[in-house]
C-alpha cells in the first residue's frame, strides 16, 4: 500500500526502519535539520580503519525523513568513509526507488546527516593526529 506517492521501498523503510537508536561514545556524530521546519536527524557512527562498522540514527520528521535516514544507514554500513562521504541526497532517493518531488529537499537530509557525522569523525581524527 503506497500513500501520498511513496514507493513500496519507502514504506518498507518507514514501517521497519533499520539502525534506529544511538551509539555510546561514537567516533562521529552529525545533526542536521530543525524541528521548526519539521525535520531533525541525528547520525552516530563507529569507524575502524576508516570503515563504518556501526551506524545508528534518530529522526523527527515525516515518512520520507524516517525512510531516508534508515536507507542511508543501510547504504553506509561497512563502507569506507571516502566512499560514504560521497553519498548524495539523489543517491538515497534513487536507492528508495524515488521520492515525491515535494520531498526531495525538505525531508531528504539523511545524506547530509551522514556527511556531518563523517566530517566530525575526520575532525576528531585530525585533532588526535596533531596530538
Amino acid at each position, binding site marked *: *500500500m503506497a*500513500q*501520498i506517492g*511513496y514507493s513500496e521501498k519507502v*514504506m518498507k523503510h*518507514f*514501517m521497519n*526502519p533499520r539502525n*534506529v537508536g544511538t551509539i555510546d561514545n561514537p567516533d562521529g556524530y552529525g*545533526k542536521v535539520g530543525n*524541528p*521548526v*521546519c*519539521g*525535520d*531533525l*536527524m*541525528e547520525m552516530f557512527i563507529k569507524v575502524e580503519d576508516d570503515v563504518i562498522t556501526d551506524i545508528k540514527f*534518530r*529522526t*523527527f*520528521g*515525516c*515518512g520520507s*525523513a*524516517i525512510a531516508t535516514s534508515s536507507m542511508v544507514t543501510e547504504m553506509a554500513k561497512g563502507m569506507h568513509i571516502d566512499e560514504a562521504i560521497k553519498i548524495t541526497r539523489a543517491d538515497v532517493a534513487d536507492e528508495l526507488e524515488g521520492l515525491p518531488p*515535494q*520531498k526531495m529537499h*525538505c*525531508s531528504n537530509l539523511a545524506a547530509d546527516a551522514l556527511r556531518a557525522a563523517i566530517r566530525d569523525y575526520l575532525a576528531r581524527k585530525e585533532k588526535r593526529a596533531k596530538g
Partner: protein
Amino acid sequence: MEKIYLDHASAMPIDPRVLEFTSKYLKGLGNPSSLHSVGLEAKRAIEGAKGKVADLINAESERTIIFTSCATESNNLGIKGTALRNAGKGKKVVTSAIEHMSVLNPMKELQKNGFELTIVPVDSNGMVDLEELESALTKNTTVTSIMYANNEIGTVEPIKEIGELVHEKGLYLHVDGTAAAGHIPIDVQKDGIDLLTLSSNDLYGPQGAGALYVKPGVVLQPVLPGGGQERGLRSGTENLFSIAGMGEAARIAKNEMEKESGRMLKIRDELIEKILEIEESHLTGHPKKRLPHHASFRFSRIEGESILLNMDTTYGIQVATGSACSSKTLEPSHVLLAIGLKHEEAHGSMVLTLGRSNTPEQVPTIVNGVKETVQRLREISPL
C-alpha cells in the same frame, strides 16, 4: 484489516439512501432551462432540492438557495460577489485568521484589488476575538466572513453574537457553514446570517455540488456570468445528479442530526479522554464549544504525516494532520499557527472526525492505534 475511516472532515462517503434517490439523475433528465416536459422534470428536481436545503437551515424560502459546484465556489460568490456588487457602499472586508483557504484567498484577492482587509485573530481555543472584531467593523464594512465551526480544530464560533456585532455597524455577514452543517443546528434567521456556504459532500451527498444561501434583500453579482441560471447568480447548466443528491442529503441530515450528533458526541468524548492519557498530548480547539464529531490533538516530539502513515498502514485507521509535510505549501496549518502553536508544535497534529460508520466498539482499536503510533515514533525521535 477492517478500515476505520476517521477523516470525515476531508471527504464523506455518499449515504446509500442519497445514492438510491439521486442515481436516476445520472442517466440525464433534460436541461432544467428547457421549456418542455423533460426540462420541467429537471427543474422540479432542482426546486425540490432547494426546498430541502432551505429546511435544513431554516431559510425563508427555497428561493434563497443558489446551487454552485462546491463550497469553494460558494465562498467566492458570497464574498467577492457581495463585496464587488456593494463596493459603492464601502470597500472594507473582515474575516478571521482560521478561515478556510477558500475564504482567505478570495479576501486577499479583494485586498489586491483595492479593498481594505482586516483579519481578526482568535484565542488559543480558536474563538474569534469579539473585541477585535468589533473594532475592525465600520460603516464601510460590506462583507464580514466568519466560519460557523472550524474543520481543523472543531471550535464552534458564537455566530449569533457575531451577527449582532456585524449588523450594528457593517452590512452583511457571510458564514462558511461547511464544517458545521448537518452536525449542529444552523438557523440563518435566528443566527442573523446574510449569506451561508454549504457543501453537498459534507452532508453525505455527492461531490460536485455546493450551495449559497442568500437572505432576501441581499444584493450580489455573479463571479461566473453566463446564461443566467440560478437567478443570474450562477450560470452554467445545473449538475442535476449532485444537486438532487445534496437536497436528499440535507433532508436526511435534518431528520437525523439530533440523534446522530448525540451518538457521536459520546464516542468523541471517550476518544478525547483516552487519547489525552498519552504523555505530552494536548487537545487542539475548544474543549466544550466544539463539533460533536470532532477530536483534534497534538503530540510533542513527533510529526503528523508519519502519524498518519503509521495509523493507516499498521492499523487501517485514516486520520488527518495539519503538519507541513501534508500540505501543498510545506507550511504547517495556518489554523494551528493562529491559535498560537509554534511551528514544531503544529507539526505534531492529528485530527479525527467521526461519521455515520463509526461505532463505540471501535474506540479501543483507535485508542490503541494512537498510543502505539505515538510510542513508536517517539522511540525514533531525537527530541
